[in-house]
């Protein structure tokens, strides 16, 4: 490990520490930005260690924590945090319609690809992310651990949906 990578690792770790501390100590409006800083810095640290796949997963998973903790749909007293919640309904409906149109476009794209596009006949080694080795580990050697984490994520999403449903 050369000096530049050591400096990158130390800098990213320092930024991750700043993000973690700011997420707890800064005002609530800065929490999402602090968590995004934590996600980016962790991804940078993992990438500097040669763990490109883990860096990508960290960027997605830790970045997803930012909107979860930023938006507060329920105030600490249990009242809606947005007084104009009714006014927000049309924008949500528009977002849902846009999402439905996007899903239809993706379905058309996949259908076109399945019917008209042929795969390139060459050997794929997994690229610089090492996805082939990670896939062998996650889906073969350590499939039980991947299943356990997936189950935990599923339970968390179900709990989020359940409490959000009861709120409405």
């Amino acid at each position, binding site marked *: 490990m050369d000096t530049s990578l050591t400096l990158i690792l130390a800098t990213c770790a320092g930024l991750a520490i700043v993000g973690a501390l700011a997420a707890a100590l800064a005002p609530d409006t800065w929490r999402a930005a602090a968590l995004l800083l934590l996600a980016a810095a*962790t991804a940078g640290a993992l990438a500097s260690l040669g763990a490109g796949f*883990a860096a990508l997963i960290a960027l997605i998973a830790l970045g997803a924590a930012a909107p979860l903790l930023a938006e507060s749909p329920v105030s600490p007293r249990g009242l809606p945090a947005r007084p104009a919640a009714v006014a927000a309904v049309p924008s949500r409906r528009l977002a849902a319609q846009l999402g439905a149109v996007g899903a239809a476009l993706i379905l058309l794209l996949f259908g076109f690809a399945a019917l008209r596009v042929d795969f390139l006949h060459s050997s794929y080694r997994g690229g610089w992310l090492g996805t082939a080795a990670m896939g062998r580990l996650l889906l073969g050697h350590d499939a039980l651990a991947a299943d356990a984490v997936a189950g935990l994520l599923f339970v968390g999403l179900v709990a989020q949906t359940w409490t959000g449903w009861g709120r409405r």
Partner: protein
Amino acid sequence: MNQPLVVALVAGTAVVAAGIFAACWSDAPRARLASLPALGAGAAIAFAGVSRFAAGSQDPSSGQEMAALLVVASLAALLLGLAFSRGHEQA
């Protein structure tokens, strides 16, 4: 213990320590929950560093795999914590 392994371990441990400090410092539930991603991130950095630089490492991909699983598990724990917090607020 070689120098890069020490750097990686110290970096991961420092991020975990920052997460523990954040969890203990604030009284707000959301601020405490914000420490969960930091704990997962620090542990992931340490695992990736050990996997790359440990002298007896037989499988260099295992640490990267553990790092990926840890950050996803921290996100799942954050989801569960938010759900518990919201259920407690509704009760």
